[in-house]
């Protein structure tokens, strides 16, 4: 019952399950959980039988729930729609170690190590008792009982944890700056303004296990002596806000927020602030401006927020996933966390694996896992008949890694060396039906309209680059446009204050480098090889494949298709608006694009 499951119909399934159980009056109990990450098979249901047998099903629909509940009440787990069985209930639930993955036989889960998302899908995120059951706030208790603030920071430093929002700055180091600042008033911020399109790790963490984030912040507050925290949540995530609000109130009621927490000489409380829809407000100084009541415009750094942040006070600002990792590290150890990942990039990272891949969803893997493992094994590779072209990482600030470089390891350094970034963890897989000029254009349209306007190169330059790309996409580009794009890209990178402008040209630069042939096909041959750019394509019907079933004729909104029943149909190119309806309904793969 996270946003994505609900978009797939989970609420009706949940409702049906409740009704069925009420009707049968048996001893079943149903509760909601956060997201298990495997969006492709949403809505998902997990069944736990007395004695420990557990099984995950998906995709399920309301009517099927009757079978499931009836069968389960007799102690039988049905075979159809099984994602996998979970062999045993963990004997000591609170341990995060070796939680790795609960469905070790399933390809999607096999190679995952779930640390940040350890409790997502395991607990009712609206129940603090469920969270307690899996060990929530035990790491905080450990800090208060056994550790010093300096010891906590040392543990985080030793773990090698780096900012999961994109920049990858060492978390412990940030905390240390704030701890050492002389001002008395200090703040913590959780950046939940997850703006990268195609990325939704943080939404899922907040919706699935909000207490992990609260506990992480409490530990951060203990370590840095901050008294007050702010969680800044994107406006587009109302469910995450609601669950956070519930979590905050429950934690307060349990004495985990407020004065004298757990009886110790330690006080901390939190405010929840909703964003208002601006990509740039994910930049830390812009986010602070927004909390202070101004428009979200970045300011030059230094001074960094760790020294001078919210209301000019020292402020630690970390993103959702970073905070969620903290309790696991404290509870286990820095050494335990460091066993995952590479020398420079330790631990695990949650990625949103989406786009043209069979298994879409959220995956958490150790850093250093190869792109091939993530895309081809966990993701199950391309859809039948398609071939992979590239993977776009890092959102609008990132770039495209071509399929022949899927041997690359996913860590901060490697991706950056290849002109992209890891960013917040978005991975959009592109197949042969994606046009790289169109992708570059898409991101520039995004960044140019999200530029706050403060720096001229970003405000004006991105718009000019977009115009050039639009020319190329309509077949009116010239060869020298490519040089122009490169020159402007470098100028914008140099001349912009914040990360938005500095990285906005990346999607253009990486596609120009690795997919220059596609740009040239648009310019010299007036052709879009992937069949995407409107002005350069025509929809046609393959006479051999068409059976004259008439499905396309019925759905065509402009009456562009004609033909007799059981004879091949024809598309009138003058009337065709390229809406793709015919392609969608044709079961014979007869609609082609040339």
């Amino acid at each position, binding site marked *: 019952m996270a*946003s*994505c499951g609900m*978009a*797939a119909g989970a609420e009706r399934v949940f409702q049906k399950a409740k009704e069925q159980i009420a009707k049968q009056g048996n001893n079943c109990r149903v509760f909601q959980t956060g997201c298990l990450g495997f*969006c*492709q098979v*949403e809505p998902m249901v997990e069944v736990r039988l007395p004695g420990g047998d557990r099984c995950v099903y998906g995709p399920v629909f309301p009517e099927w729930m009757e079978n499931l509940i009836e069968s389960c009440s007799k102690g039988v787990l049905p075979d159809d729609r099984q994602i996998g069985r979970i062999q045993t209930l963990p004997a000591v639930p609170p341990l995060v170690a070796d939680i790795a993955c609960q469905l070790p036989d399933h390809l999607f889960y096999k190679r995952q190590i779930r640390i940040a998302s350890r409790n997502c899908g395991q607990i009712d995120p609206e129940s603090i008792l469920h969270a307690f059951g899996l060990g929530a706030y035990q790491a905080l208790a450990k800090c208060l009982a056994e550790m010093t603030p300096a010891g906590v920071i040392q543990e985080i430093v030793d773990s090698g944890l780096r900012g999961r929002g994109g920049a990858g700055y060492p978390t412990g180091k940030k905390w240390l700056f704030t701890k050492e600042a002389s001002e008395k008033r200090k703040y913590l911020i959780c950046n939940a303004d997850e*703006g990268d*399109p*195609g*990325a*939704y790790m943080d939404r899922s963490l907040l919706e699935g296990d909000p207490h992990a984030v609260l506990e992480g912040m409490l530990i951060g507050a203990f370590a840095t002596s901050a008294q007050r925290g702010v969680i*800044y949540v*994107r*406006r*587009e*995530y109302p469910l995450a806000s609601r669950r956070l609000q519930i979590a905050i109130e429950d934690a307060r009621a349990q004495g985990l927020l407020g004065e004298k927490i757990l009886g110790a000489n330690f006080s901390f409380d939190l*405010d929840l*602030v*909703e*964003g*208002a*829809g*601006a990509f740039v*407000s994910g930049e830390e100084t812009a986010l602070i401006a*927004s909390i*202070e*009541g*101004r*428009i*979200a415009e970045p300011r030059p750094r230094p001074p960094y927020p760790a020294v001078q942040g*919210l209301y000019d006070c020292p402020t630690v600002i970390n993103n959702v996933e970073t905070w969620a990792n903290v309790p696991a590290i404290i509870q286990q150890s820095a050494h335990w966390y460091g066993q995952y990942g590479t020398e420079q990039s330790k631990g695990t990272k949650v990625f*949103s694996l*989406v*786009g*043209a891949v069979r298994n*879409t*969803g*959220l995956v958490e893997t150790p850093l250093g896992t190869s792109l091939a493992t993530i895309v081809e094994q966990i993701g199950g590779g391309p859809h039948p008949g398609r071939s992979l072209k590239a993977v*776009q990482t890092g*959102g609008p600030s990132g770039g495209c890694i071509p399929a022949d470089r899927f041997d690359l390891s996913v860590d901060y350094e490697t991706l950056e060396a290849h002109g992209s970034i890891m960013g917040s963890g*978005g991975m*959009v897989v*592109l197949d042969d039906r*994606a046009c790289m000029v169109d*992708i570059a254009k*898409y*991101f520039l349209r*995004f960044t140019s309209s*999200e530029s*706050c306007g403060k720096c001229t190169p970003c405000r004006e330059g991105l718009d000019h680059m977009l115009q050039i790309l639009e020319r190329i996409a309509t077949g009116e580009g010239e060869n020298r446009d490519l040089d122009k794009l490169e020159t402007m890209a470098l100028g914008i990178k140099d001349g912009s204050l914040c990360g938005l402008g500095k990285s906005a040209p990346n999607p253009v630069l990486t596609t120009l480098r690795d997919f220059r042939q596609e740009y040239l096909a648009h310019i010299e041959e007036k052709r879009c090889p992937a069949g995407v750019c409107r002005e350069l394509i025509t929809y046609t019907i393959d006479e051999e494949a068409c059976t004259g079933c008439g499905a396309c004729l*019925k*759905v065509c*909104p402009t*009456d562009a298709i004609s033909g007799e029943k059981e004879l091949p149909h024809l598309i009138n190119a003058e009337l065709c*608006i390229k*809406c*793709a*309806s015919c392609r*969608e309904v044709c079961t014979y793969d007869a609609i082609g694009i040339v």
Partner: protein
Amino acid sequence: MDIEAIAQNWRNRPGMVTGALHDLQRRLGYLDEEGMKVLATALEIPLSQVYSVATFFSSFRLAPIGRYHFQVCHGTACHVRGAVQLRERLERDLHLTIGGTSPDGNYSLEEVRCLGCCGLAPVVQVNEDIHGRMNQIRLGRLIRPNEDENENPVKN
């Protein structure tokens, strides 16, 4: 909630202006000029600050929206899975352009950056409900749920 109470609630709190504007917008569904003026006075900040925040962020609207508010997600995953065609379909069927509201006040159309349901792309949100795995046919049913599915709504 009256404006004085909104201001009282948010004065000097983190997220003061955006928070107060969200509450103000909840009253009418958009931000009215008079409301912003009263709010600025009550928060003891310049009207220009209220107005700059109201026009900087895309969540704030200075005009009413329709009874059915369609939001087409245009995140990357939705883009590569046909968001453009979905947007055009809505524009055609609802006789609206992005940002527009129908004269009868029934429909309005907006493009949003990313709803964070990328695993179910492409996605369209109508009022509070997010609909995943959209395509032309399912979108047609969403626009006109009562229509016979063999009938093409666009041709009517």
